[in-house]
């Protein structure tokens, strides 16, 4: 296998991590909605924590994307 095709396969494998982060972000917002619908009065005070959880989950997917870009363009 030459380097060019190995790079494309590696970038594709790294893109799996973005999908995993999508599941994480969906779980964060889904759990928030579940809690918010049970107690709508307390939901507005928790928006900051919602976005912190969202940021933590999203960062890992963005890192997978960064690794895919590094494999594709920087090696």
């Amino acid at each position, binding site marked *: 296998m030459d380097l060019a095709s190995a790079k494309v396969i590696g970038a594709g494998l790294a893109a799996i991590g973005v999908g995993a982060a999508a599941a994480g972000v969906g779980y964060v917002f889904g759990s928030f909605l579940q809690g918010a619908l049970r107690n709508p009065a307390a939901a507005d005070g928790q928006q*900051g924590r919602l*976005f*912190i959880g*969202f*940021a933590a989950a*999203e*960062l890992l997917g*963005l*890192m997978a*994307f*960064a690794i895919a*870009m590094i494999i594709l*363009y920087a090696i």
Partner: protein
Amino acid sequence: MAAGGKIDPMHQFVIEPIAGSFQANNPFVFTNSALWMLIVLGTIFFFMLGGMRRELIPGRWQVAVEGLIGFVDDMVHASIGPEGRKYLPWVFTAFIFLLFANLMGNMPFGIVKAAHPFTVTSQFTITGVMSLISFAIVLGVGFWKHGLHFFSLFMPAGVPLIAKILLFPIEFISFMVRPFSLGLRPFIAMFAGHILLDIFGNFVVQGFNAGGGGIGISILCFLFVAFISALELLVAAIQAYVFAILTSLYISDAVNLH
């Protein structure tokens, strides 16, 4: 691949000199990045200037500016506490600069050659320096207020000794990764979104040139680009908000020590 040329999504991030040229003995060059930073700065200046009329019954513009400041002020107050007002200037500066730079980088002026908008936040040098300033504020405030007691941030109270030995390196690493992750997040979000827009924008043109079934694909891609552009506006606001709230949380760690 007979229809179109090679797609080059990285070309939009190239920093080009506008005045002067890159040479070894000439480190100060006016680039398109610097030009767009000045444009963002000017826009923020006029936006804030329009809202500072201090009228008793505020107009629309003043409500917009006061609402934005009040939003960040509430957030800082909620996460830091009564001392938070001291740190509002930096948090608000970072928030509004990221917001305006992200939004202005999304402007669809790519057709006009000279007015091509450059997203300054799609360079890690910009967001990395901003996150380093946040980290420096955290370190400075922590050591200024608490002295060497600041290191108890890495030692959660009320856990047995064995757990402390395990927890110390974990807490330390998670603390030291903060400036990296804080700067990486807005940078990658803008970077990824612009690559996506560029690639699908190329698909629109190439599918149209191919003719036949390509025109259907071209229309689908056009709708997708419109949808992603709307999503990019949301992401631009969310990333600025996340940067501001994480900065105020980290400062809260340094001020209140858990």
